[in-house]
C-alpha cells in the first residue's frame, strides 16, 4: 500500500492500522503524535485506526525550540 508520510510517498506491504505503521517505522509510540488526513489519531486509538491506500500521515515529536 502507498502512504504519504511526512510529505514523502512510501510503499509498504499491507498495514492494518496506525499501531502497525508506528511499529514498522521503529518509533516509540509514547514519544510521537500522529495525524491521519489532517485528523489527530489519539494514541489510545492507534490499533483501532485502519489505514487506507493513499492516506496522508504526519508523525511528529518534540524537539528543541524557544
Amino acid at each position: 500500500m502507498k502512504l504519504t508520510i511526512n510529505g514523502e510517498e512510501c510503499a509498504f506491504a499491507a498495514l492494518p492500522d496506525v499501531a502497525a505503521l508506528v511499529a514498522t517505522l521503529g518509533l516509540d509510540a509514547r514519544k510521537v503524535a500522529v495525524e491521519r488526513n489532517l485528523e489527530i489519531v489519539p494514541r489510545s486509538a492507534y490499533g483501532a485506526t485502519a489505514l487506507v491506500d493513499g492516506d496522508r500521515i504526519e508523525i511528529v515529536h518534540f524537539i528543541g525550540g524557544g
Partner: protein
Amino acid sequence: MDGAGAGQATQIAGSMAEDTWSVAGRTFRSRLIVGTGKYKDYAQNAAAAEAAGAEIVTVALRRVNLSDPSQPMLVDYVKPDRFTFLPNTAGCYTGEEAVRTLRLAREAGGWDLVKLEVLSNTKHLLPDMEETLRALKLLVAEGFQVMVYCTDDPVYAQKLEDAGAAAIMPLGAPIGSGRGIQNQLNLGLIIEQAKVPVLVDAGVGTASDAAIAMELGCDAVLMNTAIAEAKDPIRMARAMRHAVIAGREAYLAGRMPRRMYADPSSPLAGLI
C-alpha cells in the same frame, strides 16, 4: 524566647516565605523559563535547564526523521517528568497552522498549556498581533491554556487578556537579538494592568537584562538564545538563575527613590 527574639524570628520567616507564581492552575517556584533550541546537543541542553533551575521548558514540534528513528530524542534528555513542557507554535504564520500544531502537541504530550506565537516575517520575527489574537480565540475555544507571545503593546496585551490568554508574554526585543529590554515604559504599563501573569519573552542578552525585567515586576522571564549562544551555556544558565532571583527580590524589596543630588550615608552629626 523573649519578645524581641520571637519578633525577629517572625520577620525572618516572613521574608523567607515561599514566593511562587501560578499560570493556568499550576504553581511554580522558578521564574525562569528556558528554551531548548540552539544547543550543541540535548545533553548540554538538559544541563543548562538544570543549572537555570527551570521548571518549565519550551519545546517545538516537528516531523520525526523517518530515515533514522534511532537518532537522539529531546524527551530522553530533557525529561517530561522533570520539566513542564510548553509546546510552541514557532514557524506558524496563521491561526490555522498554530491550532493544527498545538493539537498534535497536546496529543504528543498530553498537556493543554501551550505557547502561542504567530510571527509576521523572518527578518525581525515580530509577532503578527492581528493573527495572534485570532489564533488565541481559536485555541481558547478548543480548551487550550494559552501563554501568548506578543508585542510590548499595552492595548493588544489587554485584548489578549480579554480573549482568555492564560499569560501575556511581551518581547523585550526581537527573538534572538539579545538587545535587552527596549521599552520599559510599555512593559510597566502591561504589568500594571494585567490580571494574568506577565512574562518577558525574547530579547534578553545577558544577566542584567533578566534582572531589569524582573525589577519591572513581571512574573517570570523566558529565554533561549542568551543561554544557548553564551560561550559557556551552563555558566550563563546559572547567571540567569541568580539574575532572575535578584531582580525579583529587588522588586519585592522596593527600590530607593532616585534623587537629583547626593545624600551622605555617614551621619554629619558628631564630626570631630
